[in-house]
């Protein structure tokens, strides 16, 4: 029987473990490592970094992960596919080439996928009559046009496959779907036909299981976290994909973690909407068709997956400036900690009014009692020993948000008694809210392009 094609996950977001890549490369035989760095929040942060420095705007953590692993990657001929390019994939790809030169690795071929950044085309699109209205709320684009910071279309797997076919060993993209990081290498390996929707859907499902790193192999597992071995050395998931599209999810045996049907179910359901239609630029996958079979020893067979034709439109993630926020916090101790926290809320509201702060919205958390779940949390049965009072605000103008942060420290001397430190700074700084505007554009308005750089 031919060897399956082994894809290993090594990052689930920007901020994930940087040593997972080396663990995956050294832990056993694999063909490709995929590293996802981009969440909805990430692109706007990267945009702001790039505005400050045109050589920034990508997930620099990728270089930190790659540095200690690059020699092994080259020696073992493992391919690496990542969307670490973020807002600035060219700078990221060049940094990889530079790293290879510095490490004395000549001839490393680095694929670069661009074309997702359509910020410069928004007015042309509008002139074509494309509304760019908010996919979730139906809101009109004109309400945010002047405050737009970035606009990136979600690319699919084809440009990744093209870069690999052109001989790239490392492929860097900007915004592509997380799951394309798996389907791209599969298309390059197996040449599945463009209308082979079922196998493409299988590739997307494999990608969905790998795109969140450790969450696909026992991390953040609510269905029995006590039984997951050695989270400190968590082995991220690996998909062994057959040409038929069937695959087995597993992990390297020398590392921690757990691969069982309940673990995979949690990840399959993560961040999805209608399971019958998981929409990607490559295919619409039907998650109600997915079958799991426990093979034991951290191996689960995944099969039966069906797909429907890819959509005519591509999703675009627009980010825009949407006001300011700030938050203050203080810890109150027994007795009557809750009463004193509530009194502090009233006190702060009165101070905001006296100081003339223009506040749109106030939110109060009583952490230790109802912080995470608000009205869903039951009333405490007895006096808590302590409560962390947190008050957060949203404003239109920066000054109000800034001055709100000045109101917490004085309460230690001029407020109600029994306040310890509040975890947050004594004078917390305001931060800009960069919000997210999902929309759709016609497929033909986005042109991906592929180049290969070389060290």
């Amino acid at each position, binding site marked *: 029987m031919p060897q399956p094609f082994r894809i290993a996950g090594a990052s689930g977001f920007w901020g994930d473990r940087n040593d997972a890549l080396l663990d995956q490369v050294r832990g056993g035989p694999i063909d490709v490592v995929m590293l996802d760095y981009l969440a*909805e929040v990430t692109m706007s942060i990267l945009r702001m970094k790039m505005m400050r420095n045109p050589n920034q705007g990508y997930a620099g953590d990728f270089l930190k992960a790659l540095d200690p692993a690059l020699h092994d990657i080259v020696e073992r001929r493992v391919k690496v596919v990542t969307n670490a390019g973020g807002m600035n994939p060219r700078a990221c790809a060049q940094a990889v080439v530079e790293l290879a030169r510095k490490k004395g690795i000549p001839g490393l071929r680095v694929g670069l996928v661009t074309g997702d950044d359509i910020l410069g085309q928004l007015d042309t699109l509008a002139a074509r009559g494309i509304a760019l209205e908010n996919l979730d709320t139906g809101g009109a684009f004109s309400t945010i046009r002047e405050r737009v910071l970035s606009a990136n279309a979600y690319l699919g797997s084809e440009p990744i496959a093209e870069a690999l076919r052109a001989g790239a060993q490392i492929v860097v993209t900007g915004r592509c779907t997380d799951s394309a990081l798996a389907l791209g290498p599969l298309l390059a390996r197996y040449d599945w036909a463009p209308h082979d929707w079922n196998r493409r859907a299988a590739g997307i499902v494999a990608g969905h299981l790998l795109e969140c790193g450790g969450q696909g192999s026992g991390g953040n597992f609510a269905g029995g976290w006590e039984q997951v071995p050695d989270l400190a050395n968590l082995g991220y998931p690996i998909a062994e994909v057959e040409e038929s599209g069937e695959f087995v999810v597993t992990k390297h045996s020398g590392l921690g973690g757990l691969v069982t049907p*309940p673990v995979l179910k949690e990840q399959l359901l993560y961040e999805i909407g209608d399971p019958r239609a998981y929409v990607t630029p490559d295919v619409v996958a039907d998650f109600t068709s997915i079958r799991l079979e426990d093979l034991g020893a951290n191996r689960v067979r995944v099969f039966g997956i069906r797909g429907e034709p890819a959509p005519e439109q591509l999703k675009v993630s627009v980010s825009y400036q949407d006001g300011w926020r700030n938050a203050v916090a203080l810890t109150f101790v027994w007795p009557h900690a809750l009463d004193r926290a509530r009194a502090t809320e009233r006190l702060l509201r009165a101070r905001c009014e006296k100081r003339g702060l223009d506040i749109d919205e106030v939110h109060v958390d009583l952490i230790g009692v109802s912080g995470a779940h608000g009205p869903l949390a039951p009333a405490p049965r007895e006096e808590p020993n302590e409560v962390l009072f947190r008050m957060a605000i949203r404003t239109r103008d920066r000054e109000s948000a800034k001055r709100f942060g000045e109101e917490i420290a004085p309460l230690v001397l001029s407020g109600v008694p029994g306040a310890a430190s509040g975890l947050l700074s004594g004078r917390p700084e305001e931060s800009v809210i*960069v919000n997210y505007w999902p929309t759709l554009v016609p497929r033909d308005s986005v042109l991906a392009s592929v180049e290969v750089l070389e060290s």
Partner: protein
Amino acid sequence: MRTVLYNLAHARAGDKGDRCNIGLIARRPEFYPVLVREVTADRVKHLFGEWCKGPVERFELPNLEALNFVLHGALDGGALASLRLDTQGKTYGFALLRLEVEIPEALRVETLI
């Protein structure tokens, strides 16, 4: 007979814009019909109350013995704008598992909580 949903199911929650989705997975195959019968979209909407401003949709995945709930307008404007402690609603799965449900007398359920 009544039990806490935590004893029957586990859950993972995530965000997409201002929507929170909660995947609810039966701990044993025989618990799945109980989830389908007891954990309706209406009950979930009622449980989240003012914290979920829009409708709740429910989707069935009998192949995984699981339900997927999509809570619209449940994240205070979305993770990027939210003032809440849990901006992404990652803990909302546990909030759902607090629900009390009716189970058949004959069903053997291990008490986990």
